């Protein structure tokens, strides 16, 4: 069943991060997952990914710039022939540090902001960081790097979509991802506080439509969240199909959230080649293609477009990863998702915990 062509490597370099976003997609127990690959090991992973067909690497985390050897990592990714893309929260990165990364072969930056103003953004991030993020955005522009801004949207900041678009225009970003929170990891724990109302989403949708009409730049990416659209997201372009995640400890996964699905054995890039981990790990093959599907997915015409949705969401909300993703309007087990929608209300959230971990 193996042999799918890999396109894209997601390299989670570390789970350490100075920010404390309440929707962080890292595992809840992130602090116990150590940085297991040194720069040489990452260089090997990059070469192996390129040999499997990959053309692109996203260097992410946690916060990749929390690694002191990031420039060596960027250089080896570029040398492996991968288009090298940095996903960063902007701290502890500095403009000079970004220049070094550009010289090492970095081509593009995706910078997260948490809201449209310093006060609001810093409050969600749990750290004073907004002004430093802006300085990274300006540096990216000056250095000729492609610049995407990313904002995770939820109840607290959805009303500011217009202001966020203005920030992106002022910074001359190429692209603005208005990414509705995915309710997994920390976001699932904070779902009552974060999940927006349909009215909020409709208002934001209208603002995006109007702004798209007003100007071509930046490209605005806006997708109605799966909790409300009735359509599941084609998670990761299909399990083990185009994209591979290598976690900080070296675990090779089909998706950043697949680590805690029960009963699945994934392999580690520290112990085996990436090709083995990608092609042959039992966990990687568990939901490849369609044989695992149940009804209604098994006979549904949409199955080659959305692959039955997100396995992790199916597991978290129904207890069985082979069920249809409850985000789908056709799913038999939608109750808990609909309940969550009804229950959402302004409440306090828990910030992503700050655990101690040694740097490398």
């Amino acid at each position, binding site marked *: 069943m193996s042999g799918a*062509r890999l*396109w*894209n490597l997601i390299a989670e370099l570390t789970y350490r991060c100075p920010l404390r976003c309440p929707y962080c997609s890292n595992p809840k127990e992130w602090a116990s997952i150590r940085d297991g690959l040194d720069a040489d090991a990452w260089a090997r992973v990059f070469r192996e990914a390129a040999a499997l*067909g990959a*053309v*692109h690497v996203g260097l992410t985390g946690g916060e990749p710039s929390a690694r002191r050897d990031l420039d060596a990592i960027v250089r080896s990714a570029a040398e492996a*022939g991968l*288009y090298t*893309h940095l996903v960063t929260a902007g701290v502890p990165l500095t403009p000079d540090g970004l220049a070094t990364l550009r010289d090492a072969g970095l*081509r*593009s930056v*995706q910078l997260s902001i948490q809201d449209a103003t310093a006060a609001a953004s810093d409050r969600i991030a749990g750290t004073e960081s907004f002004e430093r993020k802006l300085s990274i955005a300006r540096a990216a522009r000056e250095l*000729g790097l*492609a610049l*995407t801004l990313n904002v995770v949207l939820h109840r607290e900041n959805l009303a500011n979509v217009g202001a966020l678009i203005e920030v992106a225009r002022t910074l001359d970003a*190429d*692209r603005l991802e208005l990414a509705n929170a995915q309710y997994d990891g920390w976001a699932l724990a904070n779902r009552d506080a974060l999940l927006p109302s349909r009215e909020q989403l409709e208002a934001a949708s209208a603002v995006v439509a109007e702004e798209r009409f007003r100007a071509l730049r930046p*490209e605005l990416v806006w997708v109605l969240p799966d909790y409300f659209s009735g359509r599941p997201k084609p998670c990761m372009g299909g399990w083990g199909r185009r994209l591979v995640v290598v976690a900080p400890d070296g675990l090779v996964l089909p998706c950043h959230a697949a680590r805690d699905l029960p009963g699945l054995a994934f392999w580690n890039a520290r112990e085996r080649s990436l090709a083995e981990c990608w092609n042959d790990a039992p966990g990687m093959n568990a939901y490849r293609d369609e044989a695992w599907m149940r009804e209604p997915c098994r006979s549904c015409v949409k199955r080659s477009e959305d692959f039955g949705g997100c396995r992790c969401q199916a597991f978290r909300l129904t207890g069985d990863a082979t069920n249809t993703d409850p985000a789908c309007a056709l799913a038999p087990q939608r109750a808990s998702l609909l309940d969550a929608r009804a229950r959402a209300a302004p409440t306090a959230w828990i910030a992503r915990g700050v655990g101690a971990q040694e740097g490398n």
Partner: protein
Amino acid sequence: MTDAPLAPADFEARLRAIGTERYHDKHPFNLRMHAGTLSREEIQTWVRNRYYYQTRIPVKDSAILAKSGDAAFRREWVQRLHDHDGRAPGEGGLEMWLRLAETVGLERADVESLAGVLPGVRRACDAYVALVESSDLLGSVAASLTELFAGDIMTTRIAAFEKHYAWVDPEGLAYFRSRTKQAPRDASFGLAFVLEHARTRPDQDRCLAALERKCEILWSLLDAVEAAHRRPVLSPHVVLRDDAERPGQQIAVLPERGVRVNESGQEILALCDGGRSSEAIARVLHDRHPEVPHLLIDVHEFLEQMTRLGVLVLR
């Protein structure tokens, strides 16, 4: 529960306000045409593409005609078919447009073949016919009301051509001259019809929406013509590389996506040097491969798609 209908004078004012805001006389391409700054090639592209619109007018007028059960309406409306198609070969608005095409240096047969019609122009014109076909009589007449604004644009256009494009033989402007008379006549009939028949607020709103949609369609036609003369070049953020898995194929890699480019695509991208317009690129390839059918359309579609995906940027 619906709102009360607008008084006829207010309704008419609302219809006219749509023209003031959205009619294509305000489109940048049209402003440049009237300011005299279009190149000969741009004028030619406009004339060649606008011909497709001209061919759609009698088609949509026939559709409107077929919606009416009233002989008096049909007697009036059929006049438009005569205006465009003429009473005999060699007469009428379409013929006049072909003469204009010849005067601006195009081959008549080439224009008539519609081979060089841009995909965006085709979409816009087809959308107009579809709008008329799917509307009732009232809605389709309302969509025609852009004629209210057409008389003025023609007068300005004739003056602009005489002043700025002296290379165009004044004989060729006969179409514009004919429309300065026909458009106001047609419009006053259409307007009277709409004012009389749109009696409820929902009907009035429908008419306003149809007229807005028509303005958008005309606007997007000029968008497409204008874009054909922008000069595409590879985005600085793109890496174009060979695909090790598929010999001969390339991949354009961007921050957020990879795009497969086959050998034909590579030949097109190689011409995107930021100096040639899309139209010029399409012509070069057409001359290079005269045997390939629909090549002009395919090249424009490819360039549009690559621009949308961020592989190309327009200068």
